[in-house]
């Protein structure tokens, strides 16, 4: 009886006895994510479940990511199968208004320039010793697009999913801090003061409905490996623009997106187990992710400068910074920066066009990358 009592009491303390410094450190990191999400309001929809998932997975013996663990089930069936990010893409498509881009289509090129950071970071990642597919997963942080980063890293480097996702979402929320110094460093005051004319080219409903269909067929034919990414975004947008499936559109952008965001966040947190996360490689991923978003901004602004030159000074290069996928945050950053130098400058609509281009650009960049990898024989068909 006495020994049974002692054994029973010992069982109560097993968790504490197995608590290592790594678990404690990760619980602190998770608490930091919760603080950023709850107190600072940085991407709370993701950082709160990620932070909580990270706490759960670092409780010794709870085995949340074990073979029959609660988080493992959702991870295996939702993340590894790529279903979660794709369902989120449908919601993103249903929420996105491509009208500013349709009104001013040449601005879409800024959305391509805003993805160059992905490919430049790929080279940096290879230079610091990441192997090929790991480097691809790190570089995709430069898409500045959480679901794309999750889609690619869960496919090719699932062991880095936690670090890549945390970097992607954290830096996206820090865009208002990361972008302005780069924008100022690469432009002259004269350029920042340029007032862009109003582009008012109304778009017919037929064009808005045909746009997602045409993009899906054309882009998927060119980059078939990216068809799931492109197709889901455009399906959501078609539901929005057609106006005939209001219930499906509403479910995609609300109930489905909310449930999947919760489960996805928990699963990402679940990959942040001390043994996996506390490695030098994680710090490198975070550093390279930061560089990737900085490079996106820099190339976008430089491309904006080139367009400014080619159009005889009609384009304010600042809008190039909005060619990333952080929508509509980076468009707002451009508007605020422009207004600092010229109160008569209203760059918001132009920046929104570039930002919508960045949303499509990030998906296209990932699609091109996946198809090139397939063509090079690095990944299977």
């Amino acid at each position, binding site marked *: 009886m006495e020994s049974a009592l002692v054994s029973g009491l010992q069982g109560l303390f097993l968790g504490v006895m197995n608590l290592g410094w790594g678990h404690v450190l990760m619980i602190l990191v998770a608490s930091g994510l919760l603080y950023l999400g709850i107190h600072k309001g940085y991407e709370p929809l993701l950082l709160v479940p990620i932070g909580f998932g990270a706490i759960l997975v670092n409780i010794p013996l709870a085995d949340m990511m074990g073979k029959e663990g609660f988080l493992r089930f959702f991870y295996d069936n939702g993340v590894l199968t790529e279903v979660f990010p794709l369902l989120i893409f449908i919601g993103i498509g249903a929420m996105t208004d491509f009208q500013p*881009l*349709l009104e001013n*289509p*040449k601005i*879409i*090129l800024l*959305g*391509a*320039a805003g*993805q*160059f950071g*992905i*490919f*430049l970071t*790929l*080279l940096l990642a*290879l230079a610091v010793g990441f192997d*090929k597919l790991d*480097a*691809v997963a790190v570089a995709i942080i430069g898409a500045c697009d959480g679901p794309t980063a999750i889609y690619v890293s869960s496919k090719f480097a699932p062991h880095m999913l936690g670090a890549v996702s945390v970097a992607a979402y954290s830096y996206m929320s820090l865009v208002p801090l990361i972008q302005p110094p780069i924008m100022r460093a690469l432009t002259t005051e004269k350029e920042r003061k340029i007032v862009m004319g109003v582009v008012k*080219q*109304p*778009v*017919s409903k*037929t*064009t808005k409905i*045909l*746009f997602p269909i*045409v*993009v899906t067929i*054309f*882009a998927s034919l*060119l*980059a078939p490996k990216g068809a799931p990414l492109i197709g889901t975004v455009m399906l959501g947008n078609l539901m929005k623009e057609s106006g005939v499936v209001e219930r499906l559109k509403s479910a995609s952008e609300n109930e489905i997106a909310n449930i999947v965001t919760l489960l996805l966040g928990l699963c990402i947190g679940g990959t942040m187990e001390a043994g996996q996360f506390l490695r030098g490689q994680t710090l490198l991923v975070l550093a390279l992710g930061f560089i990737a978003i900085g490079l996106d901004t820099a190339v976008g602004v430089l491309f904006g400068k080139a367009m400014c030159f080619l159009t005889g000074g009609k384009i304010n290069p600042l809008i190039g910074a909005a060619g990333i996928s952080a929508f509509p945050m980076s468009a707002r950053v451009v508007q605020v920066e422009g207004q600092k130098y010229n109160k008569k400058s209203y760059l918001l609509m132009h920046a929104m066009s570039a930002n919508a*281009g960045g949303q*499509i*650009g990030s998906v*296209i*960049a990932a699609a*091109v*990358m996946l*198809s*090139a*990898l397939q063509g*090079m*024989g*690095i990944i299977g068909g």
Partner: protein
Amino acid sequence: MDTWTFGWTLALIGMAGTMLVLWILSLLILLLKKLFPYRPEAPAAERK
């Protein structure tokens, strides 16, 4: 394929490919706008 051949090939194809696809998309948007131009809805009274 060695690391650097892989890196430069993917970087160049990625940048050029993304730019090319988006440029063609911009042309397709212009084509759609030409084929289906915006027509403001006539006021209700006029339609009668």
